[in-house]
């Protein structure tokens, strides 16, 4: 039983498609750059779990990205410098913080939800920048030790690319299963009408809370991966002003769809990487694109594609 859009709804089909897209991208743009895209796509996937699938727009998801990056590094360093332990602790720390913040945040909705997350993000950014300065070294940032995972040498761009790609496919598979599960259906039901979900006897708040934490955890994983990819962690990983990036990517691709999220991540990265080289005023260009998207294609590229492929208007 599947309620997703017609084509490419099988779990494996998605993985194969995404694998193909990224191999093609790596061939066209070099694996060194595409490693960045992969991680950003994971971040968008995590964000979209909250926004697209549950209908709650957070404006403070950078908090979890930064938490994952910092705590992954700190705790990972305690147990050797294994990259896998950095990733694991990145996920766990952001997940726990998500549980903590989420217990307050999910009680609000709409504008209040967006802004209370922004508030927490601002507080986290401040904590990292000033009171925790002795540990985080503020704007100077921290170096991330990059070691091998078995035969994979993370200092080689091609190895790094495949290492991250495996994680993207893993996240994609888990999320794909999650969204088709009763839990995922409940998320969609909450997005469509929270009140009715409560009437059916479910405690909607509790499900939202868990989903918030999962979404935060995935953002933390992405943060730890960014740290591994760049070889350093700075407070800019948590900068509240950068929250719009992930919101934009999610909208460009089409919210509420896994492939849409991946597509949005890629397109946003391509725009911000390459348009800046061609057009000096790329922010203006991005602004115009976003306005066109909001008013003409509010369901994003994926929404447009899937509507086109089905040949009829489904809203």
């Amino acid at each position, binding site marked *: 039983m599947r309620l997703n859009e017609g084509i490419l709804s099988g779990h494996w089909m998605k993985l194969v498609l995404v694998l193909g897209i990224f191999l093609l991208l790596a061939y066209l743009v070099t694996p060194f750059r595409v490693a960045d895209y992969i991680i950003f796509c994971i971040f968008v996937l995590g964000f979209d779990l909250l926004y697209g699938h549950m209908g709650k727009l957070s404006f403070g998801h950078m908090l979890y990205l930064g938490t994952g990056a910092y705590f992954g590094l700190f705790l990972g360093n305690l147990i050797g410098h294994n990259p896998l332990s950095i990733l694991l602790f990145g996920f766990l720390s952001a997940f726990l913080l998500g549980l903590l913040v989420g217990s307050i945040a999910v009680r*609000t909705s709409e504008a209040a939800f967006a802004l209370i997350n922004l*508030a927490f993000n601002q507080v986290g950014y401040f904590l990292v920048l000033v009171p925790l300065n002795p540990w985080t070294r503020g704007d100077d940032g921290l170096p991330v030790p990059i070691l091998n995972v078995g035969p994979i040498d993370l200092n080689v761009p091609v190895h790094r690319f495949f290492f991250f790609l495996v994680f993207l496919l893993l996240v994609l598979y888990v999320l794909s299963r999650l969204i088709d599960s009763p839990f995922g259906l409940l998320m969609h039901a909450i997005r469509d009408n929270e009140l009715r979900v409560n009437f059916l006897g479910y405690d909607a708040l509790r499900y939202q809370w868990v989903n918030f934490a999962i979404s935060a955890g995935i953002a933390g994983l992405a943060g730890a991966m960014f740290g591994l990819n760049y070889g350093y962690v700075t407070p800019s990983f948590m900068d509240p002003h950068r929250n719009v990036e992930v919101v934009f990517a999610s909208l460009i691709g089409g919210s509420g769809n896994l492939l849409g999220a991946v597509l949005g991540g890629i397109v946003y990265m391509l725009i911000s990487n390459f348009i800046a080289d061609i057009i000096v005023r790329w922010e203006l260009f991005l602004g115009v694109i976003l306005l066109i998207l*909001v008013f003409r294609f509010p369901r994003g590229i994926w929404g447009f594609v899937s509507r086109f492929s089905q040949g009829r208007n489904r809203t």
Partner: protein
Amino acid sequence: MIEVFFYGLTVGGILYLVSIGLSLTFGIMKIVNFSHALVYALGPYILVSYALKGGESYILGSLLGVLFVIPIGYVVERFVIRRLYGVGIDLAIIATYATLLIGVDVIKFIWGATPIPVSDPVGSYLMLFHSRLPLYRVTVVLLAIAVHFFVLFFFRKTMVGRIVVAALEDEDGVRSLGISVGKYFSIVFVLGCCLAALGGVLYAPITAVHPYMGLSILLLSFAVVMVGGMGNLAGTFYASLFMGILMSVAGRIWGPVADTIPFIVMALVIAFRRRKV
């Protein structure tokens, strides 16, 4: 200590000017309007270019800055905000942020990205209880209070204001009386833009003029509006003065915390408020 309070009042006054428009947009349309930061930055830029053209009078330059945002505000309202009726808050945030991106890039194109300093137009001091208060800041506070009374008058006594207040309470009710709420709202929106530009012009001599100057004060204004209550003007007034003083006092005790404390207050208010927004 009087100085600290007074500096807080200055910041609070500016925050109030910026928050009025936000609060009304919030209250009427349930929209988080990021493009407010654009008009806030445009006002000072007009002032700067007026000064660069050899204009002497600060007051005239400020007036030009405030008047210049009227057409800008109207265009934004007509082509972006008005079309966001009924769409989700997410799309509204993205659309207004996109407008801000476009506007900021145009500012960078015209005036460049480097910050431009603006000198204190008054320059003298007022002695009060043995503390030296810059006369300019006194003017800012007085002006903010004057604007507050003007706004109160506007919403209580004039027809436009009363229609908007009624629409805040019950929009469908006002609509069914045959009044097109949108038209009155666009007047109030442009007024809010002018006040934001005034806030920007007044704050310019205290900081510097740069393309992103609106963004940080906008985030603070969101905090003010959430604490004061959406669409509640008196609440906004007191919340902004409170936030300003809080920032100033906190900044005196421990400098770096000043920019963060409003968000802590906001999180507490949202978390412990009974009414669900």
